[in-house]
């Protein structure tokens, strides 16, 4: 008697010596009118005889099932030395991961949006160096798959077992690419031979990860490694590799970048130029400073000193080599397009010398002739962001309480958000607090997005006060849902106590939108609930009793 392996369905139908079962199947498929199974009487009784025999065979085959040979076992997952989560925190993680978007939906009412708290929870768990329960890894990887912004923190938390798991499931392949430091796929960076081998033979994603990992530890080693194969890389790959030099960019990179300015690929050239212009001491930066300086001058002939702009008349080959894009986008004048690029790439530190020793504040305050102010200031903003120059950023931001700061001034909100990012966290949140105190919340969303979490004291107070004012003004809370959502995630949980006064439903003012006060109370309720939940989350991770409140 044969002992087929599970499952029965996969039995081959065409094995050389037909066994009785296969003859039964064939007869059943064709019908007993066409074929009489062996051992069965023909005619009326044939179907019943066939079924009798098939029943015996079926039970016999099932009863005779035996285990199959084991396939090749995967290598065990590497050990994760981190300590396990405290039990309460593990339960919280399960809850946060169960709250997937798309399940349910609809109005949020007064309950917290758990998925939005996951990033914070992950950051806090990573700070404390915990390892997740193994069974939570699939949900964690699924969450990270759907949200790229979650990936770095989720994968750090998920640890080596998640990388092990991702090798078995193509859905999670992203974890192999984005795992911090390339996960366990990377060879020891101390072993030059292994590094060399992976660099020469690895897949593109592995090579990018390798280069990034080396760059993060020893910038010049990464550049030297890249130099060894630079000439033979494909243009798209050169671009990606060049991009990884952003990390740890320094003056030592200049010769290599300068050489890349002569690259065959235009994208590689312009990236090299951009990187060079972020190095104020580079030769390219000096060339750009000369070009940009030639375009801007102080005119003393009028009542007050005024900046005049004479945009370049042509974009010559040398400018193009330094990364200036000659062709202007549709709708923009060529000369102002070239001018903007020159100023953006010129080191900001050279302007003081060019413009009569003035400070950045004084330079920004100078009137600009002939409607060039917008172009000039926008270019300076880009330069301040690229060169991470806090002094200039401060000057360009101006005072948060200035009336034009709230309007569509020369500097857009998006640019201001970028400028703020160059300041240190305290200065940033103070500036935004000042802005909100003067201009309210309607324009503040982008600016709040760049502030450090949790919001520092003055900023948190400014936001709560502004929400309170907005409520009293009688509009609906969903006009502020963006800021509300941010506040839930970013306010310091200790602010919850100060919010209690806002939870009551006050009498509806006469000019208020109908029902608005109720919705506001609900929104504040959600805000407070979320803040308490965040405090509880942190307490759980610390293995403490949660704060009572």
């Amino acid at each position, binding site marked *: 008697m044969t002992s087929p392996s599970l499952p029965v369905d996969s039995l081959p139908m065409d094995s050389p010596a037909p066994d009785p079962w296969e003859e039964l199947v064939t007869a059943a498929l064709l019908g007993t009118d066409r074929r009489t199974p062996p051992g069965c009487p023909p005619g009326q009784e044939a179907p019943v005889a066939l079924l*009798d025999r098939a029943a015996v065979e*079926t039970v016999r085959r*099932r009863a005779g099932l035996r285990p*199959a040979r084991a396939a090749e076992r995967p290598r065990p997952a590497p050990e994760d030395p981190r300590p396990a989560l405290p039990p309460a925190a593990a339960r919280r993680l399960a809850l946060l991961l169960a*709250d997937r978007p798309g399940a349910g939906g609809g109005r949020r009412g007064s*309950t917290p949006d758990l998925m939005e708290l996951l990033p914070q929870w992950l950051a806090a768990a990573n700070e404390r160096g915990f390892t997740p329960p193994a069974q939570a890894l699939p949900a964690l990887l699924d969450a990270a798959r759907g949200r790229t912004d979650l990936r770095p923190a989720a994968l750090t938390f998920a640890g080596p077992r998640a990388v092990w798991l991702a090798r078995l499931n193509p859905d999670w392949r992203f974890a192999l690419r984005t795992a911090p430091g390339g996960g366990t796929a990377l060879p020891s960076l101390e072993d030059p031979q292994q590094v060399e081998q992976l660099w020469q033979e690895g897949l593109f994603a592995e090579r990018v990860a390798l280069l990034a990992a080396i760059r993060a530890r020893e910038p010049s080693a990464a550049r030297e490694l890249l130099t060894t194969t630079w000439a033979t890389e494909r243009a798209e790959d050169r671009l990606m590799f060049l991009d990884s030099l952003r990390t740890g960019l320094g003056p030592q990179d200049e010769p290599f970048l300068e050489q890349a300015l002569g690259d065959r690929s235009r994208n590689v050239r312009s990236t090299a130029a951009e990187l060079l212009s972020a190095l104020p001491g580079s030769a390219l930066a000096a060339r750009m400073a000369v070009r940009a300086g030639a375009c801007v001058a102080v005119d003393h002939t009028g009542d007050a000193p005024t900046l005049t702009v004479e945009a370049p008349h042509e974009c010559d080959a040398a400018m193009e080599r330094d990364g200036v894009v000659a062709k202007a986008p549709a709708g923009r004048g060529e000369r102002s397009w070239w001018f903007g690029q020159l100023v953006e790439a010129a080191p900001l530190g050279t302007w003081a010398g060019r413009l009569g020793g003035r400070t950045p504040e004084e330079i920004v305050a100078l009137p600009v002739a002939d409607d060039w102010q917008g172009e000039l200031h926008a270019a300076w903003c880009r330069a301040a962001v690229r060169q991470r120059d806090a002094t200039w950023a401060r000057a360009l931001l101006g005072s948060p309480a200035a009336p034009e700061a709230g309007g569509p001034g020369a500097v857009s909100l998006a640019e201001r958000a970028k400028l703020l990012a160059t300041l240190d966290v305290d200065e940033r949140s103070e500036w935004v607090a000042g802005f909100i105190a003067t201009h309210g919340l309607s324009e503040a969303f982008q600016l709040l997005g760049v502030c450090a979490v949790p919001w520092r004291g003055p900023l948190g107070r400014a936001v709560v006060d502004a929400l309170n004012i907005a409520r009293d003004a009688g509009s609906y809370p969903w006009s502020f849902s963006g800021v509300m959502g941010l506040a839930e995630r970013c306010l310091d949980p200790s602010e919850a106590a100060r919010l209690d006064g806002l939870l009551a439903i006050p009498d509806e003012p006469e000019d208020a939108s109908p029902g608005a006060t109720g919705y506001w109370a609900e929104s504040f309720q959600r805000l407070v609930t979320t803040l308490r939940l965040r405090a509880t989350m942190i307490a759980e991770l610390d293995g403490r009793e949660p704060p009572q409140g």
Partner: protein
Amino acid sequence: MTQQGVRWTADQVLALAPDAASRKAGSKLGAAGPWSEAGSSDEGTVWGLCKGSGSKPYQTVIDLADASGPAYKCSCPSRKFPCKHALGLLLLWAGGDGAVPDGQAPDWAEQWLAGRRQRAQEKRAAGPAGSSAAAADPEAARRRAERRALRVTAGATELEQRLADLLRGGLAGAEQAGYGLWEETAARMVDAQAPGLAARVRELGAIPASGPGWPVRLLEECALVHLLDQGWLGRERLPDELAETVRSRIGLPSSADGPPLRDRWLVLAQYDTADVKLTTRRIWLHGADSGRTALLLSYGAAGRAPELSLPVGLALDAEVAAYGGARQVRAVLGDQFAPPAPTTVRPPGVTTAEAAARYGEALRHDPWLDSVPVTLDRVVPVPDGDGWQLADADADSALPLAAAARSRPGLWRLVALSGGAPVTVFGECGHRGFTPLTAWAEGTGEAVRLW
């Protein structure tokens, strides 16, 4: 045991949810914010007031000590059962962060609890009396049973005829005939009061569209229907136990008349399968002292969760009574003597070879069995082509996972839990392969649901 000790885990609470939307809504309410005056008692009662959109908060009470699983009461208008408030309150309680302190139940909660306990007592007192009333007219009952037997016999005979016709013309024709033929035959079996036959016939209809290898499966299932027909028609000549199995497979009513067995029952697994009309919930129990395995079934009409719900990984001190029939695992839950509590009990496991042998053994008493409940000890999930196996850690043999288990997220929880190391897995082992339901990592970790 301290009050803190009997609290459930969030997973166990979420397993009570009737659907995914409730799970999500309940998770959101599992934070202290909307709750006030929440509390719990040692008897397994949890209560609280939940602020909703209205001015009056909802009153939510849960009785975890009830004999037939947790009972819920909430003043909200939701028809979900349990509602999101009950789930949220249980989650808050499970969180154990002081938001649900021990205390004395408020009046509104106490009233409901007292009412329930009184009704339960009345029912218990009335129980024996009620059954004697049903048996009052044995003569009428016998006549009813005879009439039904005649109908079933007519149905089985007709079904035999249809199977013979099918085999005479060939199964290849069944692919073209489609679903309609089988639906009609199934309806005839319903008329014949043989629901077990009707269900099997309906499944036959789905086989031709079930992918490669369908002729083999169709012949197998036709043969097993034939075997059941013949079993019924020749039941007089069968041994008593087998005849009882035939009767229950045909779908005749049987009752859980086995003696109640009190034990610490570990809840091994709970999972639902649904078709258009009915949600079927299967709950597997393992008796810590008796070593018995029991299956509780609970049904819910379309879209509603079955009422009975037990937390996987916890143990309950309760009585369980088995149904009649050969080696029946099916049972009903009787009195519960304490709320479900955490336990370190794990079911004893076997090797893959022993598991396969156990299925073969069970077929002697019930040839229609698709699978048997088995705990595999020290097995490793191993990828095998498109599928997966559970391979013995200490031997070179393996059971393939059933095709349906491959596409379920639980597979990945199992793989993650193992990480290439041996785990203990409870599941169903049969001719389709092994369906994992619950797993435990080596050491002292809690039960991980895989369904």
